[in-house]
């Protein structure tokens, strides 16, 4: 469409530029930019202002406060130490489970995958509460078992400590690491190891000298991912670390605003900015580290690997599997369930439903329950839909700026910890005239939670959409369907089963996202996450447990009913059942560390 064909001059050219299609595209870009980019712009601006929400003077006070605060250095070291320890333990644990299940005949090998999925999908805050109760030095399972045997609870046996924080986090992250590693481990070409054995190497040493180096790129990539997650995580350090005086970067940013005598918005913004830069550098470093490596397997075809009998070791490995499942999932789950039925936390002799009755009768908790349910379910739907559209447009679009923009947008929120996003959202929304009036309504929380969860949903959608060949879509276009119709009737339709799974998982993640809404909550608008967190901190542990158990139960029941209904409607309407492969729901659990 070159210029010289149009001789109509300026006006015609203007009309040509402003086709409805271009106007819609322009508006979409503006809306996306406001939702994704503006909060980051405001985060930067806010770091250099004296007072929050605009109107202040330019200053470097925020940075000065951070530099002069001894907690800054301590929390940085704590964050790196915590994240590093959790990463190493979890990678080792995940790798161990991935290897024993792919290599050996075990009686309980089948248990590992469902157990890891359950542990990985449990909302972090819920998991932190459960362990906070179980490892409570006075009232938890652990202390009570010792008491039963008349053993005094030793002072070190508490979950509110460095070892407690690291071990609990590691259990959860081990499940995530396993889910991310089991694919690469299963795909290892076993004949490469066989070749080393034929050269005189023992099987064990062949594994370490051949297979492990081949796994190195995967281990590095997953390790970096988990490390970045560890820097960002808020719930575990907030629930288990803060009572023991452990402060990480995420909890310090929260402390600046919510705990310190006067809220230090400038300092919070300044520290947030530093954290975002560090994380962006880590992500860049990761892509650089992986850039030059090409361990593409030569020859390719992996031999169908068979599992080996290993005699007495099988008993040991089986015991480890069952033990891990019991300690990392069954016991904490039982603890929070029983804890929610106690008149007050720690009284095991008498169980009651009074906490549940109180939750339902109390106006505030009931409101939080209802709005959290709606936000989790509706937000999950919005996140998956938005991410699907973004990734679909990214993979099908031929315009390079569009692809680049969408790619950046789908990654941008991942550079900021939830607590930082929370601050950025407050600044962004309060700086916008019309949106400002929505502050204090659940609506802003919904938007914030949607934006915050786009990166994980986008990664999941990438895996899902890739499985539908572009040619299916093109066939619809050739048959006369417009682009939207082709997207809806072919690609989206074929992706539906996987997208439903993604919806459920994202809804669970949203339900446990404490950090993102931390700054957006007001006394009148509470989510279950924020409300139960303050109840837990104020000592209403049994009631907090009841609230959260009820919420998770309702959420799962609600989602199950919804998904079941949709499956039923679709099957009835189309008369056939599309058995789509469950497309990598694993990728999305990565931020649920």
């Amino acid at each position: 469409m070159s210029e010289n064909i149009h001789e109509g001059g300026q006006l015609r050219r203007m009309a040509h530029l402003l086709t409805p299609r271009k106007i819609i595209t322009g508006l979409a870009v503006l809306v996306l930019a406001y939702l994704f980019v503006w909060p980051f712009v405001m985060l930067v601006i806010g770091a250099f202002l004296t007072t929050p929400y605009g109107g202040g003077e330019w200053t470097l006070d925020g940075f000065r406060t951070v530099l002069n605060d001894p907690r800054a250095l301590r929390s940085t070291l704590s964050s790196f130490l915590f994240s590093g320890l959790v990463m190493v333990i979890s990678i080792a644990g995940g790798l161990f489970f991935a290897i024993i299940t792919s290599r050996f005949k075990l009686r309980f090998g089948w248990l590992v995958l469902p157990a890891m999925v359950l542990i990985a999908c449990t909302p972090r805050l819920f998991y932190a509460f459960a362990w906070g109760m179980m490892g409570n030095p006075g009232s938890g399972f652990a202390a009570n078992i010792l008491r039963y045997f008349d053993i005094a609870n030793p002072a070190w046996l508490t979950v509110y400590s460095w070892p407690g924080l690291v071990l609990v986090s590691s259990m959860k992250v081990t499940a995530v690491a396993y889910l991310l590693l089991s694919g690469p481990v299963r795909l290892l070409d076993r004949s490469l190891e066989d070749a080393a054995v034929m050269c005189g190497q023992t099987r064990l040493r062949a594994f370490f000298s051949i297979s492990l180096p081949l796994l190195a790129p995967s281990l590095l990539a997953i390790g970096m991912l988990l490390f970045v997650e560890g820097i960002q995580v808020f719930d575990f350090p907030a629930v288990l670390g803060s009572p023991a005086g452990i402060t990480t970067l995420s909890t310090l940013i929260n402390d600046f605003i919510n705990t310190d005598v006067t809220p230090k918005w400038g300092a919070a913004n300044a520290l947030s900015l530093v954290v975002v830069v560090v994380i962006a550098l880590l992500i860049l470093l990761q892509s650089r580290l992986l850039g030059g490596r090409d361990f593409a397997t030569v020859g390719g075809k992996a031999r169908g690997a068979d599992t080996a009998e290993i005699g007495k070791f099988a008993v040991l490995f089986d015991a480890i599997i069952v033990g891990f499942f019991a300690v990392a999932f069954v016991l904490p789950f039982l603890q929070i369930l029983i804890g929610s039925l106690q008149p007050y936390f720690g009284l095991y002799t008498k169980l009651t439903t009074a906490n549940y009755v109180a939750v339902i009768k109390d106006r505030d908790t009931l409101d939080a329950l209802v709005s959290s349910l709606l936000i989790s379910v509706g937000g999950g739907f919005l996140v998956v839909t938005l991410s699907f559209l973004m990734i679909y447009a990214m993979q099908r679009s031929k315009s390079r700026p569009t692809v680049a923009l969408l790619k950046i947008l789908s990654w941008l929120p991942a550079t900021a910890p939830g607590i930082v996003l929370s601050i950025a959202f407050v600044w962004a929304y309060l700086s916008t005239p019309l949106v400002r009036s929505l502050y204090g309504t659940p609506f802003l929380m919904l938007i914030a939670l949607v934006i915050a969860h786009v990166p994980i949903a986008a990664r999941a959608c990438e895996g899902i959409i890739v499985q539908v060949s572009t040619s299916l879509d093109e066939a619809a276009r050739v048959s006369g369907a417009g682009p939207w119709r082709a997207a809806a009737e072919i690609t989206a339709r074929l992706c539906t089963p996987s997208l439903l799974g993604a919806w459920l998982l994202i809804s669970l993640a949203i339900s446990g996202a404490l950090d993102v809404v931390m700054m957006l909550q007001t006394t009148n608008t509470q989510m279950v996450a924020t409300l139960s967190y303050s109840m837990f901190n104020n000592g209403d542990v049994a009631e907090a447990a009841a609230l959260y158990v009820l919420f998770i139960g309702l959420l799962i029941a609600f989602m199950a009913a919804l998904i079941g209904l949709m499956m039923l409607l679709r099957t009835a309407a189309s008369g056939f059942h599309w058995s789509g492969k469950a497309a990598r729901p694993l990728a999305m659990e990565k931020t649920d560390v």
Partner: protein
Amino acid sequence: MDTRTATGLSFSGIEKSYGTQTVLHDISFRIEPGTFLCLLGPSGCGKTTLLRSIAGLEEPDRGTITIGDVTVFDAGARKMVPANRRGLGMVFQHYALWPHMSVRENIAYPLRQRGIRAGDRGGDVERLARLVGLESYLERRPNQLSGGQQQRVALARALAGDPQLLLLDEPLSNLDAVLRHQLRRELRALHNRLGMTSILVTHDQEEAAALADVIAVMQNGVIMQSGSPEDVLDRPDNRYVAEFVGYECFLKGTVTGQSAGSVSVTLPNGATVAVATNLAVTQSEPVLIAARGDQLEIFDKAGGVAPANAVSGRITDRAKLGSVMEYQAEVSGKTLWIRDKADTRFRINQDVWIRIPENCPLLRDN
């Protein structure tokens, strides 16, 4: 290396099942030192499982395997020498080169396992690389090499450990035809030069014939026939082996006469042909005469006198396959496919004589 002592190999009563599926049925065999054995069979016949059992990568359920005078596997005595202590060399089907190591590191690996110091390994690696013509590629990564070069690296690595016995799992099947022929010749030359014992698994009868001293044809986990390439290719024992080594035409008949080294077979249409055989048959026994398409000859019936050992037939179809013409002919109710150089000598529906050469193999029909 040229002073290596080759080793013999024997296995007896080898059985192996995966779940309910038996892949090796009571296999016994023995080869002399210096032999090149080809295990020949279609995919799924158990040949690779047998090779991997010899290597020690699979553990059979029953039987014994002896390499040289060492029993490396004895199910009864619960003895299983692990693969890394059997001192064998192996070339894997997809080469199994380690992508994170250079060609030099790949070849040096077995030397390292044998405790040869880093400083002393260089010479050996260079010599092995020269042996397979790769001395200028030592610093490359495997994925920077072509298929043929990868194959040579895999071979060099398998030889680096100075193995008494070399195992090759379909080593040539991923290469194009020209390269395959070239490497096949090189492989046989290496075997002769290094004087070792080799076992190669293949589904290609031509490859087996070109390489082997002994061919063992396998089907469904059983060795159907073994012997020299001439034995197996020219004197198949049964119809399965005959078909697998390229016989396409089978004529049913009964034995009607015998003399020294020759048997007369009468076909259902009454024609009688004589074939040379050592097979001990009885009068009236049902038999099959097997023939390759290019062994049979067609003669014009209008020419008058029937040629010796010929049967009457009719051309039913023909197809030009490059430089040869393939005729389809009906003989005594059976369809034969005959390849003839001469282009268009015979027409469809023409009555012809088809001469059966005396050296066509005779099989029992059961």
